[in-house]
């Protein structure tokens, strides 16, 4: 089967890229080894967070936030987005100090989306917090979405513009022959002049077969969700000194994450919950919200994601192969960036350049000098 671009990976990055290319009239085929959203894209915490990003990601995250605000115009669905702000709570003078340094650093880069708030405003925004909290770093227009719904919206829109999805289609080999990529799968061969690698935790295999291996490590951050509760808090709560992400979803459930890792069997693509780490996570929640002690946890899970050693993604043209592009390794914070990543890749592929500073995400940073 032939198309203009073959995209490996039907998650958010692949779907966003396919959508943006299709909007520019380019015919894409998306190869998905299972079903779209089976791993990171479908089961992540859905955070739309600009707060506390590494400086290299700030220009991207700010533009991505703008895109999420208008996501309905892009994909025809609001993806269940909410923008109640995200907070990074300080529990001590030491925490406050750390957060103030951070705020100053962001200001010095010329950005205003992160700011400090004092105790009084903190408790206006989140009265349910334990009284010992002293302040917070806030990004007021941050929020969250429902990831599987977002993915479904991207996929639907992409399909409506002619993108073809092939599910349960595992890529066995990629080869460049003359000016064409030949992608061999158990469901036939796919040909296109351009190849895009959005294979998430499996992207390392594709990069290696292009001759540019990367130190990608798959990991499975654990999440837990509680029974439904009456609405009691709006903003997403993080902590200056704890591994925690905490929010009350639209349906009243609490979604609790903190990048505690499950034990992963990558070959079998299964993970086992590590209860000792979730016990720590539960203690973190109770420190900030002691009144929640009798709330029942109804599910825990872990989705498989790609982690890079520097926790930065790879977004670039291949350094070894012609007409091949990468977008992977988002290290558990790619969801918010996804609408923009598709746009950047489409710009790179169609126009040969993007206005966004993506040099820090080049794959060559892992190659020996």
């Amino acid at each position, binding site marked *: 089967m032939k198309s203009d671009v073959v995209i490996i990976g039907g998650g958010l990055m692949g779907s966003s890229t396919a959508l943006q290319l299709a909007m520019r009239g380019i015919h894409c085929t998306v190869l998905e080894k299972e079903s779209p959203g089976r791993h990171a894209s479908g089961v992540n915490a859905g955070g739309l967070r600009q707060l506390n990003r590494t400086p290299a990601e700030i220009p991207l995250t700010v533009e991505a936030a703008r895109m999420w605000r208008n996501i309905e115009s892009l994909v025809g669905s609001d993806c269940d987005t909410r923008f109640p702000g995200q907070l990074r709570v300080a529990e001590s003078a030491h925490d406050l100090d750390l957060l103030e340094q951070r705020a100053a650093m962001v200001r010095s880069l010329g950005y205003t989306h992160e700011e400090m708030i004092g105790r009084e405003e903190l408790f206006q925004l989140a009265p349910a917090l334990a009284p010992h909290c002293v302040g917070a770093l806030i990004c007021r227009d941050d929020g969250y979405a429902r990831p599987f719904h977002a993915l479904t919206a991207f996929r639907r829109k992409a399909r409506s513009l002619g993108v073809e999805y092939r599910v349960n289609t595992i890529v066995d080999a990629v080869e460049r022959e003359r000016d064409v990529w030949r992608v061999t799968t158990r469901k036939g061969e796919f040909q296109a002049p351009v190849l895009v690698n959005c294979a998430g935790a499996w992207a390392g295999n594709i990069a290696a077969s292009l001759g540019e291996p990367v130190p990608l490590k798959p990991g499975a951050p654990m999440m837990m969700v509680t029974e439904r509760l009456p609405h009691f808090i709006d903003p997403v709560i993080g902590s200056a000194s704890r591994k925690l992400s905490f929010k009350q979803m639209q349906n009243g459930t609490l979604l609790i994450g903190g990048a505690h890792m499950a034990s992963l069997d990558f070959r079998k693509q299964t993970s086992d919950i590590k*209860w000792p780490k979730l*016990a720590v996570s539960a203690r973190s929640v109770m420190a900030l919200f002691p009144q*929640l002690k009798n709330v029942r946890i109804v599910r825990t899970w872990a989705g498989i994601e790609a982690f890079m050693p520097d926790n930065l993604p790879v977004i670039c043209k291949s350094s070894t192969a012609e007409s091949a592009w990468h977008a992977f390794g988002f290290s558990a914070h790619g969801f918010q960036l996804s609408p923009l990543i598709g746009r950047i890749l489409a710009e790179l592929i169609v126009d040969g350049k993007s206005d966004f500073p993506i040099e820090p995400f080049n794959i060559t940073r892992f190659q020996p000098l």
Partner: protein
Amino acid sequence: MKDHYQLVIIGAGPAGLAAATVAADHDVEVLVLDEQPAPGGQIFRAIETAPAERAEMLGPEYRRGEKLVTAFNNSSARYLPDTQVWSLSAQREIGVIHQQQARMISADQVLIANGAFERPVPFPGWTLPGVMNAGAGQILFKGSGIVPSDGVVLAGSGPLLLLLAWQYLRAGVKVKAVLDTISRVNYVKALPKLPGALLAHHHITQGLRYQQTLRLAGVRLHNGIRDLQAHGTKSLESISYRHKGSKHSLKTDSLMIHFGVIPNIHLSQAAGCDHSWHKRQQCWRPELDKWGSSSIDGILIAGDGGGIGGARTAEHAGRISAFKILRNLGILNQRESKLEAAQDRKWMKADLHIRPFLEKLFRIPDSMLKVPHDNAVVCRCEEVTAGEIRSAIADGHSDSNQVKFLTRCGMGPCQGRQCSQAVAHIVADKTSIPLQQSVQFRIRPPLKPLTLEQLASLYPDETE
């Protein structure tokens, strides 16, 4: 209580009790975890405390449990009642809650003996208050002597339906009708299985006795009913169904439904044991060898949780698994365990003779399982209808887990126990992918809700 046992048995029904007694008699350190307050399981519930009169009403099979419980009580096995198991790993680490306290227990060998539960079959109105599983009705009766005050209709299929109708009749409850989904076709299909079944005649004579008693008492017995619906605004007011082409309806505020039982496989799924679809029993079962060993080392399954065989078979299977466990622990050698298990194998084989007959006879019509009415709520927890599931599939969400992601079907506190089969049937029907090849809901522990405080109390030395 210790943190580690040679053998942990989950469930104190016939299989668990029999296995625990055998293992304890061989000086194995046994811990039996049970959700119930007293040993006996669902089948012999409250057997130690039920008054003689009620036990008499419940029939002679119930008495059989007394022997099992007495032997267990006299053994050295440690019994932990009122205990919920919320996780089981392939490394045989067991998360439990007992007296509000969470803890982890590990074991060299684990025997899952947690039995079966009633097959949930969605139909319009089945979630209305007043519609109850016959098993739950029987629990209220066995445990506390509670019966419907204003008469009852029983509908569905399976041996329990007749048994409960008969028990209600004896207790003086007005049985308005027994509506059986079994058509005459099933009787014809089941007949060839009869010669084998005759070897287990106690089951058949019992069933016939129930039917005869009900008929003599003037109870309406309708076979081959279709299109069962429950109606009411806030709670059940009436039911309707089709029988021989004409529509009937009945006023009732109590409907007991029963569509047979299916293995409780949440624990074996959580541990990662292999399962497969069983066509005759219309359910998933763990893959077991003839000793009850699962695909995971040191995890065995006995009784209805491994496939529906009934109480007597469960008792034999429990003992057979116990002999294998004794061998795994190095207490018996291969020859000894074979020899010890021989008698139970013989009895079990005789008891299982009835199964092919019962499975043919009580087979749930495909129309009820595969194509629930679009208005029927499939997921009670998240209130997802069959129609919503069908539109998710039509939108390209072509397996159970994708349907779950999109619709939240199966994400409630019951962990998908109630809807997983119905969703799988609908997916199979819409996608034409046979159930045998379909994927099931992935298990997301805790299997039973655990509070934040209970979780926080575990592993106090662990830090970020």
